[in-house]
């Protein structure tokens, strides 16, 4: 609430005032329409049936007028339905569960680090401190090539990892949805750091013998938010092509990008990035109306690349010894906060209920006209969404967003637990988080989900989904064997 009324901020009465205000503003139309309707009904009853009939005859309708009016109505209705954007349904999705041989316990990670960086104890210490505070658990996975001492990041190993992850997740998707490979009309694969020739989408087409007139796209270099960019692209394509299926594959191939040097800022991704992938089936077919899990409501993309600091904050470059790694700058969190503000400003009007928007407008007017020192009103997004999926980029990202959006621990539970169990799987982490919520049985019909992802550039993308049908606890998700252990308490610092 604006600081004009500070004394009431802890009062219980304020809660009821707030609730009353929200009901009033959100349902203003109903509240206005009901008295009007009641008035008309009373008037109609008072007049009696004969009076109403005579009123009707006095209007002198003739055939031409009736025909023109009905044509007009039909015309307007047709234009409305034709220009309405197609509804995009998310039929189902599958997440990758790595084999147990790829597991990386903390002690193994530190041991490899000590053996490989034996001349640089400070770098080893740094990695240990990062790992202790990372929020990761003991079951995250790295690809097989990284388990070697020293790691073997050959192109063959990278392709091997890509095949392992992508084919496994596609097979899982086919099994879940009953989709035939020949029915895929649009294929979008996004993998930021590994971009071979032929592309990964060509690899998928080759393996599953997809149709020759398929529309395939391969997005690379777009960072951790590329998953939502692919969804946006799929949505646009599905507007143009009627009656189509689109498969989006989001993954990050770690093998070729494991940093082999000892520059501290570049060792950070090694501690956080882990193996993972997801495949999503989107459709605009009306037959999927009752079968689909979610409906896509909005996708909002914000790009802060015009600002130089934002552009350079996640930068892939060579270190002093010529080894390539990703440099994360120190003001990453500040820039992420800025990008988030931009994104919220755009998405707010689309999703927030009228009560919140009115308050925000009033505060904005107040700040501009009366007193610029008023604190900006942060809309309560908990009113707009039931579930939040914040990209599990790291503990700091989740903490920052929890603070900025004033979310409770339960709202960010999906993100924290995904970070603990799977690590930062880049663009696919949002799907593991939705999988967590489903596995906990919390997804009900009509629930709205907000997915937020940050990416290099610097980008902040969001997607809003509405749950189409209450989802039973799935038996074939990667959470199936461990969901009962969650949520776990993640200590601030794990002693290594």
């Amino acid at each position, binding site marked *: 609430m604006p600081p004009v009324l500070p004394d009431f901020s802890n009062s219980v009465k304020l809660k009821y005032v707030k609730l009353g205000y929200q009901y009033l503003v959100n349902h203003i139309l109903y509240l206005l329409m009901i008295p009007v309707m009641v008035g008309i009904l009373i008037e109609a009853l008072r007049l009696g049936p004969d009076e109403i009939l005579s009123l009707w005859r006095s209007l002198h309708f003739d055939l031409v007028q009736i025909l023109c009016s009905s044509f007009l109505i039909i015309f307007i209705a047709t234009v409305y339905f034709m220009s309405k954007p197609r509804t995009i349904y998310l039929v189902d999705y599958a997440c990758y569960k790595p084999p*147990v041989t790829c*597991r990386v316990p903390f*002690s*193994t990670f530190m041991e490899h680090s*000590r053996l490989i960086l034996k001349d640089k104890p400070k770098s080893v210490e740094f990695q240990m401190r990062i790992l202790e505070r990372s929020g990761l658990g003991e079951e995250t996975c790295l690809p097989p090539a990284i*388990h*070697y*001492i020293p790691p*073997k990041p050959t192109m063959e190993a990278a392709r091997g990892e890509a095949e392992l992850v992508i084919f496994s997740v596609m097979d899982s998707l086919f099994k879940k949805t009953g989709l035939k490979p020949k029915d895929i009309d649009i294929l979008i694969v996004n993998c930021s750091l590994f971009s071979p020739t032929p592309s990964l989408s060509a690899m998928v087409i080759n393996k599953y013998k997809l149709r020759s007139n398929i529309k395939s796209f391969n997005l690379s270099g777009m960072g951790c938010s590329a998953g939502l960019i692919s969804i946006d692209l799929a949505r646009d394509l599905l507007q143009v092509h009627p009656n189509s299926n689109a498969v989006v594959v989001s993954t990050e191939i770690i093998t070729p990008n494991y940093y082999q040097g000892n520059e501290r800022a570049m060792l950070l991704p090694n501690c956080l990035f882990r193996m993972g992938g997801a495949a999503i089936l989107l459709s605009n077919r009306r037959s999927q109306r009752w079968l689909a899990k979610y409906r896509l409501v909005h996708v909002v993309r914000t790009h802060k690349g015009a600002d130089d600091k934002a552009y350079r904050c996640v930068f892939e470059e060579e270190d002093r010894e010529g080894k390539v790694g990703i440099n994360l700058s120190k003001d990453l969190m500040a820039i992420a906060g800025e990008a988030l503000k931009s994104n919220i400003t755009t998405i707010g009007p689309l999703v927030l209920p009228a009560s919140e928007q009115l308050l925000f407008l009033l505060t904005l007017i107040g700040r501009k006209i009366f007193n610029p020192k008023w604190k900006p009103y942060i809309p309560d997004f908990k009113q707009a969404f039931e579930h939040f999926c914040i990209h599990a980029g790291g503990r700091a990202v989740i903490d920052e967003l929890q603070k900025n959006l004033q979310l409770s621990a339960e709202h960010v539970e999906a993100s924290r637990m995904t970070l603990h169990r799977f690590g930062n799987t880049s663009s696919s982490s949002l799907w593991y988080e939705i999988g967590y919520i489903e596995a906990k049985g919390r997804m009900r019909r009509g629930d709205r989900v907000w997915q937020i992802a940050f990416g290099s550039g610097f980008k902040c993308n969001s997607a809003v989904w509405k749950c189409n049908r209450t989802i039973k606890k799935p038996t074939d998700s990667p959470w199936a064997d461990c969901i009962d252990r969650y949520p776990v308490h993640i200590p601030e610092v794990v002693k290594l």
Partner: protein
Amino acid sequence: MLPNKNRPFPLSLSYASIHCCLLLSEHPVQVLFFTLLVKKMVTKKSMVSVHSMLTAVSSKPVGSGETHPLSVLDHAMGLHTLHVVFYYKKNPFGIFDVDPLRISLSEVLCLYPQVTGRLTRGESGKWSVKCNDAGVRVLRAKVEVSMDEWLRSADGSEEKDLTFWEEIPEEPRTWSPFRIQVNEFEGGGVAFGLSCTHMNADPTSITMLFKSWIENHRQEPIEHPPLFDSATLHHQHAPNTGTKSDIYYATKPNAEIPSVKMVTATFRFSDSAIKKWLGEVRDQCAKATPFELLASLFWTRVAHLKAPKNDRKHSLSICLDFRRIVQPPISLGYFGNALHFSLLTLNEEEMDDVGKLGHVVELVHRHISDVGEGEVWSAVDWLESQKEEGGKYAPPFRMYGPELTCVSMEHMIIGHGSLMFPASFKSGEKPVHVACHVGNVRGEGLIVVLPSAEEGLARTVMVTLPEEEMPELCEDQAIQCLQPTMVISGR
């Protein structure tokens, strides 16, 4: 990081030295000899090349990170290392990184948290294993020749390349005590070389680990699940001092052993040959086992080769596994050292004649039968009594040596077959050969009597002796009477 398996002499250095010798020497014949010797060293390159090293972890996190202290017997074996090699004709691995064998290894490692842990030294100098879930090192190697060629022509020192040999470093925090080396031969064929410090396991334990891996992969129930309870070695007997074991063990710390190069040869004896010879000694020793026969045979022949001693006595140290000797018997799954060493001494006259073999067999048989629970526990008690002030264990001494030591694996033979020959992962075939090496053996030598691929009474004997004595032993007529086949003996 990878062990350097090549033993080349730097080429330029060797030729420079030859030139120097030619110039300085007055004896060209000696120089020529030296040149030839150097050339032989230059061209001698190992047939085994290790190309990768990785870490295999358990499929579930270990959890509590407990520290498991090693027993007093484990500490006593501290100077030695253990290496066991299983040869299979067919390589079960497909694509190594994603093979289901790797998954079954990870699952079985969940049962062995000590194997994936790391050694730590406490304040009192006591070793323990911290179960920190760090994993087991797996090495991959390629062998240039086919397995048949290897069994025919490689020698004992080359067989050592099939496993990993390294002493415990000063700081064992990042050092994996267990190593599994997968050696792939030309044209198919694979040898699994398992190695560990003798502190962590004895030959039975390490074989059971491998067997559990196979059983898990073949989805059979694990026959001997691991048991880590160190309380297993505590017993209710009253301490018994002054027994033969005490006296024997007390001689070990003070033994001075010169360091001599040792070589290993492997003799295979068939079921029929053993049966025939057991029949020959039946009237002197009715219940002789193949181990007793072979131990006596090799002891007498090796004693024959050695230089005569002052006291004209010969000693044999017999190493037995006491899991089945004590009451109640300890499960074969007990993971740790359960070995008992006992000394048998005979006069030279008793052993000299070939005809006296039956007599020696009888004496060995009686000695082994006499090794009972009392002896075993008194040895353990003696080791316990050697603790210094503050509970610190005494430094380890050489348990295998200085006398000729003979190790029995008869307890691994159950019925007609043996536990040392577990059926392969996918094809179900038995190993072609199993070898067992012990590191840091000094003194007169080591004889290990193992089961053989041929079932029944057939045995494989691995003999480690000083280099100059080995050729004579291989030619020995008494041994040749049993028609052994020589494998991995470089001929």
